């Protein structure tokens, strides 16, 4: 190999390294120095000290760790924090506050959409993402017409299937999310009419 054509050598495979990562979480910047192994989930809980997001299975099977990245729901256990430098993350703490609940949080309480509550932060973030996906025309396995995506309880059941609730509060979760969808769309319809 020509010495005049030297390339940057690849990092030594066993060299310990940390990376600087800036995450914007719920509108607040967090500058963290992390081992690249740290998942987004562990960065949120152990480094940004936002423990609302829950670690369930840690293997992408339960949905408890669901957060929104740049507005889209993802599993924070199956992605590395270093991969999200500069991106916007929303956790359950960013949806609402105890004094000013997100409509979904309010509806979950009124419909008893949780029992132990461990799955609830992921259910809430997933529900926010789901309503947005339906509005954007993202199809699901139960969508009859790919070109006409609309809201239904069947759609919710399918779309929330990646969020497991061992207490099986599912009927109440469906009721809560359905109510919020109806309220949002009623409001949108009223706005359009005015």
């Amino acid at each position, binding site marked *: 190999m020509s010495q005049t054509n030297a390339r940057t050598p690849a990092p030594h495979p066993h060299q310990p390294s940390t990376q600087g990562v800036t995450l914007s979480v719920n509108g607040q910047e967090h500058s963290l120095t992390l081992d690249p192994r740290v998942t987004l989930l562990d960065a949120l809980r152990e480094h940004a000290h936002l423990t609302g997001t829950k670690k369930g299975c840690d293997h992408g099977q339960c949905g408890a760790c669901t957060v929104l990245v740049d507005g889209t729901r993802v599993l924070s256990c*199956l*992605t590395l924090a270093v*991969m999200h430098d500069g991106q916007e993350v929303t956790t359950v703490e960013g949806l609402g506050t105890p004094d000013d609940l997100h409509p979904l949080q309010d509806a979950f309480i009124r419909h008893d959409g949780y029992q132990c509550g461990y799955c609830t932060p992921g259910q809430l973030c997933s529900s926010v993402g789901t309503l947005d996906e339906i509005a954007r025309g993202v199809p699901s396995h139960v969508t009859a017409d790919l070109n006409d995506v609309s809201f239904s309880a069947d759609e919710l059941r399918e779309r929330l299937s990646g969020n497991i609730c061992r207490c099986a509060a599912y009927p109440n979760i469906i009721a809560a999310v359905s109510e919020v969808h109806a309220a949002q769309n009623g409001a949108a319809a009223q706005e359009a009419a005015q």
Partner: protein
Amino acid sequence: MRAFTYERATTPEAAAGATLAEGAKFIAGGTNLLDLMKLDIERPSHLVDISRLDLNTITETEDGGLRVGALVTNTDLASDPRVKAGYGVLSRAIVAGASGQIRNKATTGGNLLQRARCSYFYDTNLPCNKREPGSGCAALTGLSRPLAVIGTSDACIAQHPSDMAVAMRVLDATVNTLRADGTERTLALDDFYRLPGDTPHLETTLEAGELITGVTLPPPVGGTHVYRKVRDRASYAFALVSVAAIVNGRESRFAFGGVAPRPWRVEEAETAGAAAGPDARARAVIDAAFAEARPTEQNAFKVPLLRRTLTAVLEQASGEEK
């Protein structure tokens, strides 16, 4: 998870060379790779993050097909109006797989490269030739109910887990790559995937450092598009069997998932019984396409299940055609 170093690739050309080093791997969506790293099945010492490369768009090709960037997410691919209109079987297959959260992250290239879900591949206490070459296959005499019935070998009977790839196969999609030396390749799916033989740890014909840049879909072929998946629960589970079909009279195409180490399609079988009703036609197609099947006692049910699933697909298509 074992320690690794991390870099973010800035161009496809730079990325293609960056995994030449031993132990280096690409990461994009990460939804399969990170799970396997946590379980100590994948052990990369260096990760090359390609997630921000400019390979996340779907563009039209000159002949009226689509070029899908390797980093287009499963959600974006299934939702694209051109895909919904011309390649319905692909939209249907994608949304039959995984969960909404995973589809938002999983990429087209990564989906093609996802690894087997055989429980012996996942259990590092047990032998698996795919995970530890030469260690043996515990599945051959173990729990083989979900595993493959055709295209297998004495070394491995794991099935390919992807739904998307089955639809890609029925659509005659090709995989576009960029090699470390800067040259490009286009591979049909059957040339992209290897059958296990005695080297089941080698799953594709990708070379060291070779980057998947996208998938090319030929122009739409019309017909009725159906993807039908049979699984142990209604959602968020891998297929026991699946059928990707484009039903268009004698020109119909069928590919099968959950039954082989790669999407299974036998073009010569597709015209079998073409004049017959759904039941007889499905029997003729499956008899021809699965003549070489060597199921285990536990998964022998898959062949008749696939026949009945194809019958249902043909009935559904004839209903939609009326």
